[in-house]
Structure formats: C-alpha cells, structure tokens
C-alpha cells in the first residue's frame, strides 16, 4: 500500500491551461519578466543540487578542522565552500555516529536546504513522509532499506522555522585513501536527508 494521493486533483489539461493563463497574465501585466521563470527553474534544476552538499560532506570527511567549523557554524562553513542563499540562510549540520542516526523532515510544509541539496524529491513532500517521519521513523527508514540496531538512537529534525538541516553521514570504512572528489561521488542526496547510508559504490 503506497501513498494514494493522486498527482493532482484537477485533470492535467485543466491545470496546464490554468498555469499557462496565469503566466500570460503576469507577463502581460508587467509583473514577471518573460525570461525570469525559465531562469529561476534552470538555476534550481541544473546549477544547484545535491552535488553541492556532497562536496561539503567529502570536505568534512577529509579535513577535520573544516568538519569542526561545519558542526559549530554550518552557515559560515557552507558559505566558505561556495554555497549560500535562499533556503540556506541559516544552516545546521547534524552528524551521524555509531550511536546516532539523524533524519530530516518538514511536517508543516516541505522546507529543505536548497543551496546544498537543490529542490526536494517528491516523496519528501508527500503526506506519508511528512506524517510518519516524526511518528515512526524506524518504520520509514526500514522502507528505505535501512535497519538500525536498537542501540542506535534515531533523531528526527522537524524544520519548523528558518533553520535548515543537513545530515553529515558516516564515512564508509575502507574509503580513507580516497580523495575528497572521489568521496563526494559516494554521497547521495538520500544520505544527506538521512534516509540512506553512504555506501562504497557510487
């Protein structure tokens, strides 16, 4: 049984027409510049994405002093790596350890750290994830294939204010010889949300 919410409550044709009308109207009124929409979409589709976060994570794994800065002042450390801006104005990075596993949700809407992870996957915005992450996180993690021992404490971060959270996953054993560039390739978006671990195959 999966989240049965339909893609949309209106027919796709209906809503496409409604959006097309709205765009024409807003451009016609001079409220939106014709190229603005495409540029905004392009920015978050192609320029900003989870490669940014992976770069931050790999740098933290390979540079203990950077890691310390990242955990104590994430906003500054992430900016130092070149990432900042909208929906990342105030950042916190939470570290996974042998005993602690972190995961991130936004139960009230779908807040997400854009500068480091890009835009969220649709499942992150689903009713099911938003409802269950704070209520039965182990069941959710298990659905994602992650079975954690009883001795691991699960910590769920509900992004209710303008603080945005990113998980610093554990570095897989046996990857100590890899460069930051190679390590970054191992770090998935899901690992930085906290619903996956980092494996050794990219």
């Amino acid at each position, binding site marked *: *049984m*999966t*989240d*049965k919410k*339909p893609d*949309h*409550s*209106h027919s796709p044709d209906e*809503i*496409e027409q409604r*959006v*097309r*009308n709205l*765009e*024409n*109207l*807003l451009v*016609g*009124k*001079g*409220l939106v*510049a014709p190229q*603005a*929409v495409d*540029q*905004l*979409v392009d920015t*978050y589709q192609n320029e900003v994405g989870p490669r940014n976060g992976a770069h931050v994570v790999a740098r933290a794994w390979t540079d203990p002093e950077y890691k310390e800065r990242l955990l104590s002042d994430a906003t500054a450390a992430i900016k130092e790596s070149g990432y900042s*801006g*909208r*929906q990342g*104005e*105030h950042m916190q990075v939470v570290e996974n350890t042998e005993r602690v596993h972190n995961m991130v949700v936004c*139960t*009230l809407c779908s807040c997400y750290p854009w500068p480091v992870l890009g*835009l969220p*996957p*649709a*499942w992150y915005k689903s*009713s*099911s994830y*938003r409802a269950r*992450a*704070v*209520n*039965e996180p*182990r069941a959710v993690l298990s*659905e*994602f294939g992650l079975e954690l021992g009883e001795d691991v*404490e*699960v*910590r*769920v*971060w*509900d*992004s*209710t*204010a*303008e*603080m945005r959270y990113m998980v610093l996953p554990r570095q897989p054993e046996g990857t100590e010889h890899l460069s930051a560039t190679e390590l970054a390739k191992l770090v998935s978006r899901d690992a930085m949300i906290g619903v996956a671990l980092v494996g050794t195959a990219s």
Partner: protein
Amino acid sequence: MNSAHDLGGMHGFGNIDQSQRENFTHKWEEKVFGLTLACGLLGQWNLDESRYAREQMEAGEYLRSSYYEHWLHGLEKLLIEKGLVTVDELESGRCKNKSSLSPVAVENIPEILGRGSPVQMRPHSAPLFQTGQLIQVKNFHPRSHTRAPRYIRGRSGRVSAHYGAHIFPDLHSARGEKRPAHLYNIRFEAGELWGEQDAEGRFAVYVDLFEPYLQAAEV
C-alpha cells in the same frame, strides 16, 4: 490554524512512494515554481504569508492535490489579496490594466537568490530559557498561521540549542510585522510525544520553536 497541512503524527497514509525521486513531474510544476519565485521577488508579501496562503486551501483539497497545486493556490490567492491581479483577470487570463510595479530585472536574479533572506534579528530581551532546561509547549490553537505543529503542543522537552532571535512567523504572516522572538531547538522524547505505549521504541524529535510558544515546565 489547525488544518490538513499539519501532518506530523497523522495515520493512514500508507507507504512512501519512493519512485517519486524528482522534484518536478510535469512542465506546469516548473512554471508554478518559477512564477511563485518571480512574484515573490516583487516584495509584496513574505515567505510566512506564502505558507499561510497555502495552508488555507480547503483541507480535503489540500490532501488530494499535489505539492505544486498548493503553491498555485497560494500564489493566486496572494495575487488577488494584494491587488496585483483581479479575480476577473485571473479567470479570463486577460490583462485589463498594466501593473504599476516593475518586475525584477533578470540579470539581478542570481545575486538576489544568492543573498537570500536572512531572518535573524537583534532580540528585544534576554532569552527566557537556557540550554538543557526542561520546557513545556503551551497548549494553544490559533486560527491564524503558526509554526508550532499540533503534535508538540502541551508536550515537554529539553532545550538543545538557542539560535538567537528570528522573525516571529505568527505575526509576520498576519501583518508583515517583523518582530524578533528567541528561537530554540527542543528535543522531545518519543514516549512524551506519542505515549509510551504507542511510541515506536526509543527515538527523539528535535523541533525549532519560538519563545512565545514555550513556558517553563512544571517540575
């Protein structure tokens, strides 16, 4: 407001559809995203007003519709409420009068996005609570916008961090008023939130909560 958007702890939604790994699944969703950001840049409303506009979607419709339908609903609502378009224009799709506002120049967008909109403010008073302190979330049920979800109201937790003062969304969403409120991160134990009997083993939920939501716990 107590409504469908406040999903934490609701049951019956079934498994998560992990195949939905993309942000956009339809072209119109990209348009709604872009239009929402572009209109936001006009400076006629703030992010908390956007959230509140989406939350006011009728509850059944909210749950039956997709994420970017919520955004579309919110955008149309704000455009009308702020007088940027008329209902008639929206329904016909035809522009009656040019707006007196000017769109943000496309070449300025990268810099604006890069700067973001920090919400940190100088506090008006010293923080009431200290890290490590046991607090209780007030039991309150405003009909307007709040960022205190229902599942932590009335529950007790411990201050895990103090983040300084941020713009208080409950007022920002209503009148655009920028008033600072101390922001804390609070750790709640699963058993405290859901009852020992119904909690799924041991875990903790960390929630960012503003000082006006909180009171010292009765020990």
